[in-house]
């Protein structure tokens, strides 16, 4: 991948225009697709689940369990944490974190898969392979 070659060919001007058009569609600075993958399998990354729901779930389960468990805390347990009823406070805080993550995920849902990115002809890629 170390020896780039000059962009080749007579149709360079057409490609140039095509590229500019496609750039205008892409409103953001999107990196070019990797040359190795052109015309091959498409990425499935848009099927990745929303992590916020996972964090919310874990903290929700932990929060509920800790809060319930805290009602059975003995005085010795409370004394151990310097007099703070730690499991209760921690359980309630974790429930709060759970609510924050679910709320965030609801207010700003993960974007649905983007409709087809503008594709650029392979000749226009910065050549990489030898």
């Amino acid at each position, binding site marked *: 991948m170390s020896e780039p070659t000059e962009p080749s060919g007579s149709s360079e001007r057409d490609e140039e225009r095509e590229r500019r058009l496609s750039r205008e569609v892409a409103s953001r*600075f999107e990196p070019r697709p*990797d040359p190795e*993958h052109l015309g091959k399998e498409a990425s499935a990354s848009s099927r990745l*689940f929303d992590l916020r729901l996972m964090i919310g779930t*874990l903290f929700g389960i932990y929060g509920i369990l800790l809060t319930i468990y805290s009602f059975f805390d003995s005085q010795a347990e409370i004394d151990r*944490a310097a007099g703070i009823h730690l499991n209760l406070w*921690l359980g309630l805080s974790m429930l709060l974190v759970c609510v924050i993550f679910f709320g965030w995920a609801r207010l700003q849902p993960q974007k649905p898969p983007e409709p087809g990115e503008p594709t650029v002809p392979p000749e226009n890629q*910065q050549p990489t392979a030898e």
Partner: protein
Amino acid sequence: MGKLDVNWFDYGLLIIYFILVIGIGLLARRAIATSEDFLLSGRSLPAWVTGLAFISANLGAIEILGMAANGAKYGISTVHYYWIGAVPAMVFLGIVMMPFYYGSRVRSVPEYLLRRFNKPTHLFNGLTFAVAALLNAGVNLYAMAVIIEALLGWPVWLSIIVAAGFVLIYITLGGLSGAIYNEVLQFFVILAGLIPLVIVGLHSVGGWGELTDRVKQTALGEPGLSTWGGTAVGNWTNPLGDWIGIVMGLGFVLSFGYWTTNFAEVQRALSAKDLSAAQRTPLIGAFPKIFIPALTVIPGLLAIVLIPKLGTTGGDYNTAIPQLMGRFLPNGALGIALAGLLAAFMAGMAANVSSFNTVFTYDIWQDYIRKNRSDKYYLNVGRVVTVLGVLVGISTAFIASGFSNIMDYIQLLFGFFNAPVFATFIIAMFWKRATPWAGVSGLAAGTAGAAAFQFLIAPHWAYMNAGQSPDGTPNPQIINFYAAMMAFVADAVVTIVVTLATTPKPVHQLAGLVWGVPDPNAPDPATVKKPPIYESPKLLGGLAILIVLVLSLIFL
């Protein structure tokens, strides 16, 4: 130290966590169709995820326990590792270097060196990184097993196999997404474990003011409460040495080298969904990083006050946090903290394995061993390499359990390879004349420079010893920092000399890789949508630096 008083409820919380860890791996598997999905998360992740993963990849349990140990040993000077050590480098990576990494579309840090310099530079960096990553994975695993044995009584071999097994499952299934998602989850769980510990600990000694009063009466004493005290050049007494070593060696050379060129870190930013998110990755990570010392250094100070004879008969410094957990946390909160600690151990290993498999697949296998195969082929190579990487990590852990001194020595040796890397990168990105052969010669010279300082100069230089006297004990911190400065200078000098003697690459081959050589294929800046003001890298970076400055003045 005594074992933790863990009951069925704590174990229940642990089991729930481990089920979720596997669940993430299974769910992330659906999102993998290409090698880039597997090794770089398909470059699709939002900035807050990559940003938290960026610091979580480094927030392994060794880091947490080690920084608490430093807090107990050195006092609040330990914040230098965060405020001067990490944050400025993370800001520099986000604002200055990320456009070259992400914009040039390289898939790894060694690949940048391949395009900027030549194959020898590429191989030198790729191979040393791959070997060091496996070594770190193994050492992490072993350190974990030792602590689990002390805390829970599990035999060393059992925790090595169990932890490595979970890491193997969630990375082989979910790839980098599995690793990153678990890192972010771990970040929140470790906070849920450590924040209560700090609150209860401070409450029990009577607050921060009372804590500092009591620290003054310990062996650490008054100097343990000042960050810059005793750093005068010539007669330093600070446990980290003089300010030149701290600012230049730790702050500039070592930290910039680690945070801006270590692929285990940079990979998290490369998995972001666009350039803006990639730039914000280290910047978003910088904000939690500023405040993590509150969760590591404060427990260290609490431990030195509350645990008699810590560091000698009261247990190793590294047990500061586990000992406080046993003392303060009731069952329940204890289970959460334990889950966080175990998760952090696995994250420390997973970060190494998930960056190793990418460098091995793309930079070694695809570039030198089997070129031009289908993407499916490299996806499978990535999976197989992941399994092999975990197996090598396990073997390394078992070797470490038999010969831990040898392991320390090998880690020291690999430190020499890291020390000069930043010099090469900074010259590569800002001097387009720098020639292909200057790359590898600079790296080799810098590595040799660090080794020469460590073995030939430091033992004969009394300034490196406590009290600057020939009879004092050598201070490993200042030696490390000065060796790094030596590596930087050696690398820079040799890079410049070799550049002047050899032919540079044609400028068009450097497009997008060097400052002032724009990539003709990149979009016209005028057509790129301006991000909203709160996403501006300069604003975020400036804010992080400002907070660090204010905190540094408060804790002067």
